[in-house]
């Protein structure tokens, strides 16, 4: 079966949602499968009729009626899910959740926000949703709450009580109320085991929708300005034997919040759906960073194809360029060599270097999509000129 995994090669916000929506609109898709992150994802999709939704836990194929499966790698937030579902008209019939997925609780969220607050001006750019805190808690607590617990009231209560006592004084709702709403989530959402995913994969083409971007990967990003999530294709490979790797990039580079951003520039590129977040900080823009994106392709293990979004932007922004090398203390630097896997010391050193790097060679191509394809050494199969799936163009040899 020709499954496809959609991964952002930058710092997120390249347009995974709109690409997933377009894939689901162009041919039958059995399910959209989420394989990382959680409720902090924000994938904006606009229908041709003008309806807009910021997808977080529901997959970006929902407007096309495509079911969503939240795999065991997703951190599930029943509270945010309720609000998102309501905005979509409660399409719970389109949702299945792996019972092994971790549950984000109000205490995790409060701890996440307290930690970011303590960092003051050194904030990491967290979304404040407690996803990282949930992952961290699970590493040190074998009995961390998981989705299947919502089907067993006694176990759910015990595990939530353990979280509450671990975080102690942090403000949250009373335990009883949290237990009640998590149980209500369990009554409404289909909780499945791991064999369900295998069935989906056999039934027909599935789209794996990534959250965030490779340059924010917990092991490969610019430590410590990263996410507690594997944003490369690694999780997809753990779930599915064979799939096409589709990398998404936009014609300029963006990032939320703190962290190195070599090509950042005062470009006039207003953003429809990304504002300044209380927890994330400002939305930053810059020239297309081919150096960092080539690194992303390399650490992701290569891509089979690319989707290039925001192709309507270069015409509106004459200053926009592609940066093909950095200037680091007078030396030219055109490749970031990946360090040993899971070596955060190395990544932190890299962050220090990147903070000193400046854009080196800048160019303005005639054909942006083709040039980006050349630089990242993969064919461009999808060009996007606007937010709707009708603004997308599939090029020959897509699949």
């Amino acid at each position, binding site marked *: 079966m020709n499954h496809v995994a959609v991964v952002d090669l930058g710092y997120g916000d390249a347009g995974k949602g709109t690409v997933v929506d377009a894939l689901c609109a162009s041919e039958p898709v059995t399910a959209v499968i989420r394989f990382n992150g959680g409720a902090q994802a924000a994938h904006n999709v606009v229908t041709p009729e003008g309806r807009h939704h910021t997808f977080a836990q529901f997959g970006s194929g929902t407007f096309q009626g495509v079911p969503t499966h939240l795999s065991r790698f997703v951190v599930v937030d029943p509270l945010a899910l309720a609000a998102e579902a309501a905005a979509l008209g409660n399409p719970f019939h389109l949702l299945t959740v792996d019972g092994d997925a971790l549950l984000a609780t109000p205490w995790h969220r409060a701890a996440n926000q307290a930690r970011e607050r303590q960092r003051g001006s050194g904030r990491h750019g967290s979304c404040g949703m407690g996803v990282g805190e949930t992952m961290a808690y699970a590493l040190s607590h074998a009995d961390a709450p998981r989705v299947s617990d919502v089907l067993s009231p006694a176990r759910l209560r015990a595990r939530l009580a353990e979280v509450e006592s671990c975080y102690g004084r942090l403000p949250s709702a009373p335990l009883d109320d949290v237990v009640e709403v998590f149980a209500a989530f369990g009554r409404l959402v289909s909780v499945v085991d791991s064999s369900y995913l295998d069935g989906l994969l056999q039934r027909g083409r599935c789209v794996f929708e990534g959250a965030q971007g490779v340059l924010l990967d917990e092991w490969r990003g610019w430590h410590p300005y990263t996410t507690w999530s594997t944003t490369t294709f690694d999780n997809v490979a753990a779930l599915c034997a064979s799939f096409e790797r589709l990398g998404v990039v936009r014609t300029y580079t963006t990032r*939320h919040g703190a962290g190195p951003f070599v090509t950042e520039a005062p470009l006039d590129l207003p953003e429809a759906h990304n504002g300044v977040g209380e927890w994330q900080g400002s939305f930053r823009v810059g020239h297309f960073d081919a150096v960092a994106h080539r690194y992303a392709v390399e650490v992701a293990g290569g891509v089979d194809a690319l989707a290039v979004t925001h192709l309507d932007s270069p015409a509106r922004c004459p200053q926009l360029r592609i940066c093909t090398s950095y200037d680091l203390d007078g030396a030219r630097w055109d490749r970031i060599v990946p360090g040993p896997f899971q070596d955060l010391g190395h990544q932190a050193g890299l962050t220090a270097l990147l903070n000193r790097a400046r854009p080196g060679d800048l160019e303005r191509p005639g054909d942006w999509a083709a040039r980006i394809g050349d630089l990242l050494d993969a064919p461009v199969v999808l060009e996007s000129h606007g937010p709707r799936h009708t603004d997308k163009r599939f090029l020959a040899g897509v699949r």
Partner: protein
Amino acid sequence: MGSGHWSTNVYSAAANYRAATGKSAFAYSDSGARKAHAALDPMNVGKRESRDSDEHPQSTPIAVLFDVTGSMGSVPRVLQTKLPQLLGLLTRKGYATDPHIMFGAIGDATCDKVPLQIGQFESDNRMDEDLARIVLEGGGGGQRRESYELAMYFMARHVSLDSMEKRGRRGYLFIIGDEMPYTQVKPKEVKTFVGDRLNEPITVEAMIAELRRSFEIYYIMPTAAGWGGDAEILGYWRQLLGQHVIALDDLDAVCETIALTVGLAEESIDLDAGLADLAEFGSAAGDTVGKALAPIGAGRGAVVRSPLDLGGAATPGGNERL
């Protein structure tokens, strides 16, 4: 990357899961309810409040009250499905700081059982619950008047706004309907539906003058409604509210219209920028909204919103509190 866009409030989540368990979005009304839901009953409520908080230090109160009488046809149901998007529209582009939204419904106090329903100011999707609880009575009298003046009375005397009291910034009141107000606020109706004792009637002009101390008032007439586009009715409202009368061709554009009106008044945008934003969101409402708001936005950049003098001097023209 990402956002905290969706509410993580435990109680609204619980309500949403309850709501999703096989019930209509208008379950309360559709269940045959013929009195105001306790959460929306204006009787003896004291004050509906819009308060600043740590999370929302600069609240901007926005009230949207719509006519639910029969002449409005299916309009209230369309509004109930559209209005939940309002908060997102306001916040995404920063048209208003910390918006607090209240929903309510207006009927005819001379013949309806539920002529006035007023929710709370909310800054998250709890406001959707209020929408779901509104009784769509579908009554009304057929005399081309509804009790808009009674709603104005409530909004003037039973609402307390931090934006006004702390910063001298008025809130926004949008009334969506298709008929005229009665010419007076009647003491008997106020007693029956709000619980206050009035010694004498208040003319609608005096009521509006008083209400304007705390709200910018707009009247939106959907042309799809019964008397939609009626020149006499529009003319009457223009006489009362001047250019704050908006004729709206396409009800689907109601959220965009309200959001842009607020954005214009807050001077966050001019009309062109607002319409460009709509295009950028992929909204198809641009033409309708542009047409509807042309009298408000055209050629003047933004509507100036005058801060009120908080010095305590009596506001001329207003009806003093009885």
